[in-house]
C-alpha cells in the first residue's frame, strides 16, 4: 500500500575484492517511483493518504476563504525587481550622490569603496578570483562581490531598497537607491554601454536596463528564461556501497582546536548557579536591542563592549561625561543611541552595565 515500505531488491555485483551494489537509481525507476525536477521522489497523494499520513476523504476543494486584494494593496507590496527590469521604478541618481550616501550609511559595515574590512560582506574587488580554491594556509580564496559574482543589477536595486541599511531598511527612496547602485557599480569598475561611471555619471531607469554584470554567465542551470533548467537534477556526488575490504583510509584530526562557544560546551547535569544577576539580564536585553548593533563590533568605531582597553579610555573622561555624550550623541552615535524611548536613568543604568562588563 505504501510505496516506500517495499523492499527494493538490490542486484549484487562482485567486482575485484569489493562487493559493489549498483546504483539504486535504476532499481527505483523499476519500482515505479516518480521523481520531481530536484531529483526527489514524488509520493502520490491519493484520496485517502499521503505516504503514511492519512487524509480527510471528503474531497472538498472549494473554500472561498479570504478576499481579493485591492490594486493599492498589491502595489504596496509588489516591489520586487526582475532581471529583465520588470518592477524597476523611475528615478535617477549620480555616482557622487551615491558616494555621499555610502559614506554616511554603508561604509561603517562594508568599508571604504566597498572594500570590506569588518565581518560584513565585501562589496567590490575579486574579479577573476572565482576559480581560486583555498586548500591550505596562504592560498587566496575566491571573492564573491557585486562586481565579481552578482549576475544581475536588478538584485542589487531590489535588495538595497528592501533590506538595507541593515538596521534601517526600507528608508531609501528611488533616487537614493539609483545613486547607491551607480556608486557600487563605479567602485567595481563596471561600465554601462562602454561608459565608465565617473562621479558626475547619472544612472536612470533607461541606463539601468543596459547594465551587463561581468559574471552574468557564471551560474547554471537556471537562467532568467528558465529554458535550460534540467529535469531531475543528479546529486553532487554519488557514493558507492562497498561492504567488505574497501579502500584503506587515513584518519585526519583537527589541527587547531576552536574555543569560544557561547555558552561553553558542557553536558553536565547539575543545578544552575543562583541567578543573582537578574537586573543585569534585563539590561543585557535592552543592550541587545538598542546598543549591540554598533557596540558589539568595531566596524562603526563605537567602543566594543567587553574591550577593556578601549573602555578604560572612555571612562577616563569620567562617568558623568560618558552619560552626557550618550544622551546627546557623539561621533557616529545618535542621541541615546537612536532609542528615544530610553529615559535618562535607563540610559545611565545601561552605561553602568556596559562599563561593568568591560572591566
Amino acid at each position, binding site marked *: 500500500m505504501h510505496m*516506500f515500505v517495499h523492499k*527494493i531488491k538490490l542486484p549484487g555485483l562482485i567486482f575485484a575484492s569489493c562487493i559493489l551494489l549498483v546504483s*539504486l537509481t535504476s532499481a527505483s525507476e523499476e519500482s515505479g*517511483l516518480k521523481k*520531481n525536477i*530536484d*531529483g*526527489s*521522489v514524488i509520493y502520490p*497523494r491519493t484520496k485517502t493518504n499521503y*505516504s503514511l*499520513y492519512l487524509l480527510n476523504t471528503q474531497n472538498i476543494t472549494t473554500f472561498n*476563504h*479570504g*478576499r*481579493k*486584494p485591492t490594486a493599492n494593496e*498589491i502595489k504596496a507590496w509588489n516591489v*520586487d525587481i526582475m532581471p529583465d527590469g520588470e518592477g524597476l521604478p523611475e528615478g535617477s541618481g549620480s555616482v557622487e550622490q551615491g558616494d555621499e550616501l555610502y559614506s554616511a550609511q554603508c561604509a561603517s*559595515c562594508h568599508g571604504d569603496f566597498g572594500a570590506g574590512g569588518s*565581518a*560584513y*560582506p565585501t562589496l567590490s574587488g575579486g574579479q577573476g578570483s*572565482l*576559480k581560486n*580554491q583555498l*586548500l*591550505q594556509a596562504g592560498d587566496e580564496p575566491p571573492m*564573491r562581490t*557585486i562586481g565579481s*559574482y*552578482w549576475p*544581475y543589477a*536588478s538584485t542589487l536595486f531590489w535588495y538595497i531598497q528592501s*533590506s538595507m541599511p*541593515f538596521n534601517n*531598511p526600507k528608508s531609501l527612496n528611488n533616487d537614493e537607491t539609483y545613486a547607491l547602485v551607480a556608486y557600487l557599480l563605479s567602485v567595481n569598475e563596471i561600465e554601462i554601454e562602454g561608459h565608465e561611471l565617473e562621479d558626475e555619471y547619472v544612472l536612470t531607469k533607461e541606463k539601468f536596463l543596459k547594465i551587463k554584470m561581468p559574471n552574468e554567465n*557564471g551560474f*547554471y542551470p*537556471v537562467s*532568467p528564461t*528558465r529554458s535550460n*533548467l534540467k529535469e531531475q537534477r543528479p*546529486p*553532487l*556526488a*554519488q*557514493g558507492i556501497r562497498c561492504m567488505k575490504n574497501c*579502500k584503506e583510509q587515513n*584518519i*585526519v*584530526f*583537527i589541527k587547531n582546536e*576552536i574555543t569560544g*562557544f557561547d555558552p561553553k560546551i558542557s*553536558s553536565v*547535569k547539575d543545578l*544552575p548557579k543562583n541567578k543573582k544577576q537578574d537586573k543585569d539580564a534585563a539590561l543585557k536585553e535592552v543592550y541587545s536591542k538598542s546598543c549591540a548593533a554598533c557596540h*558589539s*563590533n568595531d566596524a562603526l568605531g563605537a567602543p566594543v563592549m567587553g574591550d577593556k582597553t578601549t573602555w578604560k579610555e572612555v571612562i577616563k573622561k569620567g562617568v558623568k561625561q560618558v552619560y552626557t555624550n550618550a544622551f546627546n550623541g557623539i561621533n557616529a552615535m545618535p542621541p541615546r543611541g537612536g532609542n528615544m524611548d530610553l529615559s535618562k536613568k535607563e540610559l545611565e543604568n545601561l552605561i553602568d552595565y556596559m562599563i561593568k562588563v568591560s572591566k
Partner: protein
Amino acid sequence: MNKNTEESSKLISSRRSFFKKTAFFTASLAASSSLLAPLKLDASSLDDEAITKLAPWGTKLGDLVDKNHYGMPSPYEHNNVRRVHDLLSSGDRYATVSMSPLHQQEGIITPNGLFFNRSHSGTTQVDPHKYRLMIHGLLHKPLVLTLEELKRYPSESRIHFIECPANGSTGWRGPQFDNLQFVKGMMSSAEWTGVPLKVVLKELGLHKEAKWMLAEGSDNSEMARTIPIEKVLDDAMLVWGQNGEPLRAEQGYPVRLLLPGWEGNLNVKWLKRLEFSSKPWHSKEETSKYTMLQKNGKAINYFWPMEVNSIITSPCPENPWSALKKGDIIEISGLAWSGRGTIKTVDISLDGGKNWLEASLKGLVLPKSWTRFSYIIKWDAKEKMLLSRAIDDSGHIQPSIDKLIENVGVEGIYHRNPIVGWFVSKKGEVKNAHVRS
C-alpha cells in the same frame, strides 16, 4: 514496611499536619530535615546510597503545579541549550545561527526551544492580528488572507526536518569543531501543521504560464526566494503549527512556507507574499548567497534539496564512551535524512570505512524526515573510527569526502554531505576526525 521506614513515614505525616498549620513551610522543612535519620541497614560497600538513603525529593513536596505557566525542562538540564559561535556570524548576533544540541535529542522531533535558529536580521515579532498573506500574479483569483482565515483550511500535519544548506560547511578543508553540536547542529525537526499549498491554489486558478513562485518574508531582511511550480504543487505547505503549538517566532510566527527536504532558507519565515510568474526572480539570497561555487569558477544556482546524509549521535564528543567497561554492550545510534526521499539503508563502519555493517532503522521511517538508526556492539576498549553511510529511495548514496571534493572543490560552502564520523580512543574519548585517501 520495616520498622525504620514506618517510623520515618509517621514522622513525615506528623510533619505534614504541622506544616498545614503553619506558614513556615520552607524554613521549617530545612530545619527539620536533620530529624530524618538515615536508615540503619547493615553497611556494605556494595550498597548504593542512592538506594539505601532516603532521597530528598521523596521526603518533601515538589514545586507547585502552577509554578511555570509554560513548562520548563528539569533545572538539571540547563546545559541542554542552543549555542552560537562568532565564526558562524557576519559581525553580529542578528544575522547568525544558533546550533541545536543534537547530542541530547531523542527520537525524530526537536523540542521547540532547541530548534536551530537562523535568521538574516534577527527574530521578528509579528502581530497576529495584523498578519496578512497575499497571493497574486499569474492566477485568476488573487487572494488576501488573515491568519484566522488561513487557519480555516483543513489542516494536515507532517514530520519533516529543516536543515540549513551550510550545515557541516566548516568541514570542507578538514575537521574543525570538536563537538556534534557545531558539526551538524544547523538542523532540527518538527511536526508541522498547516495546509498544502496546492489545496489553497486549486480554487485560485493558476495560469499555465505560472512556472515560478516568489515567497517573501515580512521581516527586516525581506527574505525572498523563488520556488519552481513543480515543488509548489508537490508537497509545499503553509504552516502555522510546530509540535502542537503555534509556530515559534524564531520559526516564522505566525506562518512560514514549508518545502519538505529543501534548503532551510527556502522555507521562508514570517511569510507575507506569494507571487506567481513565468520567470524566476534571482533574489539576493539565490545569487549572492546560497549558490554553490565550483572549481571551474561557475556556480550552481537554485540548488534545492538537502542531499542524503547521516551522523552518529551516540557516541559523539559530547557523549563519549569513557565510562564504559570492557565488555559492556552499547548501542551506536544516529540520524539519517534525505531531502530527496525516504531513508532505505544505513551502513556503519567501525574501522574507518574498510568494512561496513548494515544498521537497523528504528521508529517511524518517513519521507524527507530524520530517521533513527542503530547498531549494538560489545565495547572492546580498542580504537575505532566510526562512520555512517545513508542511502535513500531516490537512489542517492552518501559519498566519501574525497569523491565530493573531487566533484565540486572546497569553495562551495553549501550542501556538504559526505560520510563523516568520530574517532574513539581506547579510553572511550570521542574526537571529530575525517577519513581521506
